[in-house]
C-alpha cells in the first residue's frame, strides 16, 4: 500500500467501511448480496471436491442454470409463487445434468473430468450468449439480454431491506450440505471417497454411482445459483452477468480455502465478498485503485492456502476416477 504512495490506515479503513458500513448498512447489504453467488459457487465446488471429484466447470453449469431460470420464468403461464420454485428447480436440474454428463464421459470413456468440466464451460457459455443475442433477445433494449421477468415471478427482497432472498436460499444450502456431509451415510461415503477412493471401493462403496450423484449435486447447486441470481438480482438474463464477476472461479478458491467444508465455505465466501465490496468502497473514498484490493485478495489467498495446506494435509485431488 505504501509502495503505491497511499496511507495504509486510511485505505484499509475505507475498505472496512466499504464492506460493512454505509448509510443504513448499505455496504453490508451489498457485501451479503455479493456473498450469495460466491458462497453458492463455493459450495458447488466443495461438494465435488469433498468426494475427490474435480468439477472446475461450475461456470458452465451456472450459466445454463441462469438461462434456464430466465426461460422458465419468462414463459411459464403460472402464478409467480409456482413459477419461482419451478424455475429454480429446472435450473438445478439442467446444471446437475450438465455436470452429470462430465461424470458420464469420465466413467464411460475415460475422459478426465478435470478437462471435460473445464471445456464444457465454452459450449454452455456460447449457447447462452446465442440465446440472448437472437431468439430470446429483448429487441427493444440495445443490450444482449432477455426480456424483464414479471415482478411477481422474481425473488423478493427480504422484508424492508436491500437483501436478496437468495441469501436465505444459500444459507439453507450451506446448512443442508453440512448436515448431509456430517450426518448422512451418503456424506460419509463422500468423505471416505474423497480421502481415499481405493479404501472406499474396497469397503464396498460404488464409487461410480457416488460420482454421478455428487457431480449432479455439484452441478445442480451451480445451476440453482444461476437462477437465484437471475430471479433475485438482475430480473433477466444479461449476457456475461454471471461470468464477468468470475463467481465460479472465486467459488473454487473459496472451496479450496475452506477445505471443502460447507461452514468454511460460508466464512470464506463472506470474506471474499467483503474484500471485493470493500475494494469498491476504498476506490470511492480514496484514490487507491480497486486493483489493489485484488492484489490484497491474491496475497491473502496465497497466505491462507499455504497455511491451510500445512494444517489440513492435502486438498482434494483431481481426476480421481482414473
Amino acid at each position, binding site marked *: 500500500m505504501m509502495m503505491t504512495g497511499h496511507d495504509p490506515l486510511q485505505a484499509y479503513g475505507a475498505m472496512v467501511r466499504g464492506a460493512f458500513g454505509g448509510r443504513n448498512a448499505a455496504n453490508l447489504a451489498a457485501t451479503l448480496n455479493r456473498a450469495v453467488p460466491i458462497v453458492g459457487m463455493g459450495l458447488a465446488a466443495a461438494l465435488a471436491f469433498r468426494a475427490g471429484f474435480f468439477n472446475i466447470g461450475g461456470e458452465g453449469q451456472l450459466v445454463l442454470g441462469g438461462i434456464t431460470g430466465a426461460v422458465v420464468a419468462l414463459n411459464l403461464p403460472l402464478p409467480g409463487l409456482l413459477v419461482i420454485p419451478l424455475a429454480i428447480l429446472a435450473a438445478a436440474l439442467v446444471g446437475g445434468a450438465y455436470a452429470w454428463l462430465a461424470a458420464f464421459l469420465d466413467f464411460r470413456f475415460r475422459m478426465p473430468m478435470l478437462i471435460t468440466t473445464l471445456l464444457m464451460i465454452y459450449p454452455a457459455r456460447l449457447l447462452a450468449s446465442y440465446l440472448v443475442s437472437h431468439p430470446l433477445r429483448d429487441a427493444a433494449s440495445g443490450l444482449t439480454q432477455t426480456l424483464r421477468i414479471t415482478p411477481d415471478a422474481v425473488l423478493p427482497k427480504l422484508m424492508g431491506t436491500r437483501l436478496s432472498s437468495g441469501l436465505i436460499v444459500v444459507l439453507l444450502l450451506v446448512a443442508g450440505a453440512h448436515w448431509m456431509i*456430517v*450426518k*448422512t*451415510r*451418503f456424506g*460419509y*461415503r463422500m*468423505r*471416505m471417497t474423497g*480421502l*481415499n477412493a*481405493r*479404501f*472406499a*471401493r*474396497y*469397503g*464396498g*462403496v*460404488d464409487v461410480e454411482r457416488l460420482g454421478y450423484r455428487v457431480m449432479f449435486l455439484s452441478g445442480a447447486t451451480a445451476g440453482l445459483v444461476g437462477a437465484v441470481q437471475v430471479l433475485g438480482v438482475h430480473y433477466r438474463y444479461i449476457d456475461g452477468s454471471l461470468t464477468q464477476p468470475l463467481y465460479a472461479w472465486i467459488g473454487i478458491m473459496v472451496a479450496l480455502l475452506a477445505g471443502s467444508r460447507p461452514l468454511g465455505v460460508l466464512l470464506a465466501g463472506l470474506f471474499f465478498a467483503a474484500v471485493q465490496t470493500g475494494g469498491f468502497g476504498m476506490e470511492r473514498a480514496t484514490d487507491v485503485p480497486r486493483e489493489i484490493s485484488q492484489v490484497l485478495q491474491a496475497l491473502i489467498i496465497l497466505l491462507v492456502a499455504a497455511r491451510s495446506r500445512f494444517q489440513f*494435509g492435502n486438498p482434494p485431488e483431481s481426476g480421481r476416477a482414473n
Partner: protein
Amino acid sequence: MPPALELRDITKRFPGVVANDRVSLAVEEGEIRALVGENGAGKTTLMNILYGLDQPDEGEILIRGELCQFHSPLDAIRSGLGMVHQHFMLFPSLSVAENVVFGCEPTHSGILDQQAAQRSVAALSEDFGLQIDPRARVGSLSVGVRQRIEILKMLYRGAEILILDEPTAVLTPQERDSLFGILRALAANGKTIIFITHKLPEVLALSDSATALRDGAVTGTVRTADSDAQEMCRLMVGRDVELQVAKRSPPADSEPVLSIQNLTLPETGGRAAIRQLDLEVRAGEIVGIAGAAGNGQTELVEAIAGLRPTASGRISVQGTVTSSLSVGARRRAGQSHVPEDRDGVGLALEAPLTDNLLMGFDNHPSLAHLGILNLGAVRQHAEDLLGQFAVKTHSALESAGTLSGGNRQKLVLARELAHQASLLIAEQPTRGVDIGATEQIYELLVEYRDRGNAILLVSTDLTEILALSDRIVVMFEGELVGELPGPSATEEAVGMLMGGGGT
C-alpha cells in the same frame, strides 16, 4: 583397546514418555551388533541420538574411547559414523558414481571430475565386493543394488561404524542374503556394524551379538552363538511368545465356503495373470497360499474381492455366485478382506478411527436409519471394537494415520472380523507388525477359524504360512502348483514348489 562405540547411560525424554532410559552399550571393532526391539521400544530414538539428529538429555557417546558430542549428522559422519536409512536418499536420474561422491566431489577447477569419481567408486566397490557399475543410472537399478549404493556412500565418506535401520524390510530373500554377505565381508575388514531390526531369524543369521530394548531400556545383551530365538523374544517382548497354533483339519462334513472354478484373469504385461485356477476353502479351515511375491496372489485376491475383473471362471461364496457382483454385494454374500496394502487400501489415514471402523457397517440398522447416521452409536461401535481388539489409542476421534503399524493392522482386522463374514481373506496379515502384535493377530485368526469360518491366508512369509495354515497351496506363475497338508508341511517342501519345481 577401547570399544569402537560406547554409549553410556543415554536418557532421552519426550513429553509424557521416556524414549531412552539409561541405555548403555558397547560394540567392539569388527563386530556385527543387532539392536532388537518391538516398534516403539526406542531403537530409532537411540540411533537418532547417535547420529546427531537428536540430543540426549543425559549420557555420553564415546567413539574409540573418546568422548564425542554430535550436534548434527555432519559431526557424526566426521567421527566415522554412517547411517543407511530405511528410505533411500538417492538421485534416481544420476549415475552411481555421482550419487556416491555427492557432498564431497572430486573436482577439477570447479567441475565434477567424472573420471576420478568413477575410478574411486569402482575401487571402493571392488575392495568390498559390492559389484556395482559406477556408470549405471540409479533409477534403473533394483532396490537391493540401491541399498548397496547407500552403503558405498558411507564407505566413501570414511565411515568405520555403519548403522542400518531395518535394512531388509524392502528386500527379497535373495537380496537379503547378498546384503548379509556384504555386511559380513565389511565386518571382516574391521568395520563395525549396528543392525536395527525386529526380525529374529535375521538376528540369528547375521549378528555376533544382540542388544534388546524394551520400553526404552536395555533388557539384555547376548552373544548370538549362546542364545536362541526364544530367549531373544523374551528379552524383546518380556514374556514367552507362542507363534505356533493348533492345526486341525476341518470336520469332514464341513461345507465349502469359497469355491473357485476355472478362474482365468486377463493378461497383465503379456501373460495371463491367472490360468484355470480351482480352489476351495471350507468352513473351519485356514488355507494358506504360499508363493514368492508376484506370482498372481494379489490378482487372485483382487478377483475374489471384486476389485479386478475376471476373464472367465466362476467364484462362489456360501453358494452365491459372486464373480460378477459389485464389491458391496460380495461383502453382503459373506466375505471380508484384510488387504495387503493396509495404508493405501485398508484405511483412510486422514479420517478418524470412527470413520475407518464404520466402513461396511454404514448399512447396519443400529448405526444408520434411513440413510442418516446415528453418530453416538457410530462412536460406540468404534470404541467397542478398539477395546475388544486392544488397539492402543487416546481417542476414537484420532486419525488412523497417528497409529503405529501394528495398531493400524489391528484396526483393519478389527473391522473385518467384526463383519463376521463366513469367509475372511487375509493378505499379509502381519507385514510390518512386531512380534507381540503378530502373536495377537494369530490368536484372533485361529479363534475366528474355530468359530466355523473359512480363512484364505495369502502371505509371502513362509514362516507365517507354515505357522497358520491347515492346508497349504503353492502358487507359481499364476497357477496352483501343489498342495500340502498344513501340519506335516516343511519349509523345504513348500520352498521347492515355490520355485516352480514339482515334487
